[in-house]
């Protein structure tokens, strides 16, 4: 397996860690979600182009489309949180604890 895949995989892991371990802002977890999507896009493109899976040439673009829809949904939820609380701190999302 070429070394470039290790690099992109590491980028994914760093974004995943950034999603799971965040301090105060909801926006940073949404950004890390986009970072994960970007690293997956690059990994898929490199795989499809290097191995000549010609029929799968559309797959990275389809991934991009659905991830963009998801990002829009995440942003709209962020806007609603921000409308209610004024900021996007995640400490505000504490209404539903046991």
């Amino acid at each position: 397996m070429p070394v470039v895949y290790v690099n992109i995989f590491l980028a994914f892991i760093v974004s995943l860690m950034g999603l799971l371990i965040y301090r105060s802002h909801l926006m940073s977890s949404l950004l890390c979600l986009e970072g994960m999507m970007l690293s997956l896009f690059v990994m898929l493109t490199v795989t499809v182009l290097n191995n000549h899976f010609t029929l799968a040439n559309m797959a990275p673009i389809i991934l991009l489309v659905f991830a963009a829809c998801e990002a829009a949904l995440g942003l709209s939820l962020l806007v609603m949180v921000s409308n209610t609380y004024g900021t996007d701190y995640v400490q505000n999302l504490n209404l539903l604890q046991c």
Partner: protein
Amino acid sequence: MKPPILIIVTSTIVLGTMIVLFSSHWLMIWIGFEMNMLAIIPILMKKFNPRAMEASTKYFLTQATASMLLMLGIIINLLYSGHWTISMIPNPVASTVITIALAMKLGLSPFHFWVPEVTQGVSLSSGMILLTWQKIAPLSVLYQISPSINPNLLVTMAATSVLVGGWGGLNQTQLRKILAYSSIAHMGWMAAIMVYNPTLMILNLAIYIMMTLGTFMLFMYNLSTTTLSLSHTWNKSPLIASLILALMLSLGGLPPLSGFIPKWMIIQELTKNDMIVMPTFMAITALLNLYFYMRLMYATALTMFPSANNMKMKWQFESTKKMILLPPLIVASTMLLPLTPMLSIMD
């Protein structure tokens, strides 16, 4: 929500799950999951209040992470096997990543933290869709890749799920959280048998969906979301109180009712495969589940909870809630045990 929007959103949810169910291309499965997640957020926010918003945000974050992990597993599988079909996953790393992603979507422990909070924040009907329909798609994918899942991982997740589902529900009085922990425990039972006989997982899913739909509809009849409001059912609609009794016992898995069928079959299948400790452990932790069902039942149907004196003389109004298919669901959730020998047609 206006009817045209509700129709579009509901049909997208159904379409998303259907795409997952009948695809053999991994990318289509991922697309089906994305459509499902995108369309269920408006359903979760039907009643607009801060709790619903917080529940939707938490649901979105966990499901989006799970989708990204699923895509990572798909790409690693593509890299090592060269095909996109959902048959066997030869690479153990890809198989582990995909299993973890699907466990996050299902709410298996140790990824169960979102289930009680999200179920609590949404309305009863949205919670019903969340706990029943949303489980179909991930479980169908797990069914199809079950020969190549790491058994140790799955059995560990199942064992911790039944523990968490049993212990977590003990301190709850909110009905939606109780049903959320019940869902975690049932997912644990389904995950335990997936390695040996995936057909029994489908049986468990079918019976669990019927019981949970019936339970939610009985709760929606009185619009009750806490144990206290459920304990007033004996006065308003005594028939519902006795049906809650039957359904709670069935959820707990007691013998003459049909909730016992999946537990019996799963324990039988596990012991046939020489696992003794696991089914014993699961059967014992099912007692924890049974305890909080019985406490609900005790408060609702077996005793009169302390209430003001004028509660005993309330007018019994007709409820106008639409409960679709409730009588067949109740019958199917409590009286199917004699039909168990019919399972031999699935061999």
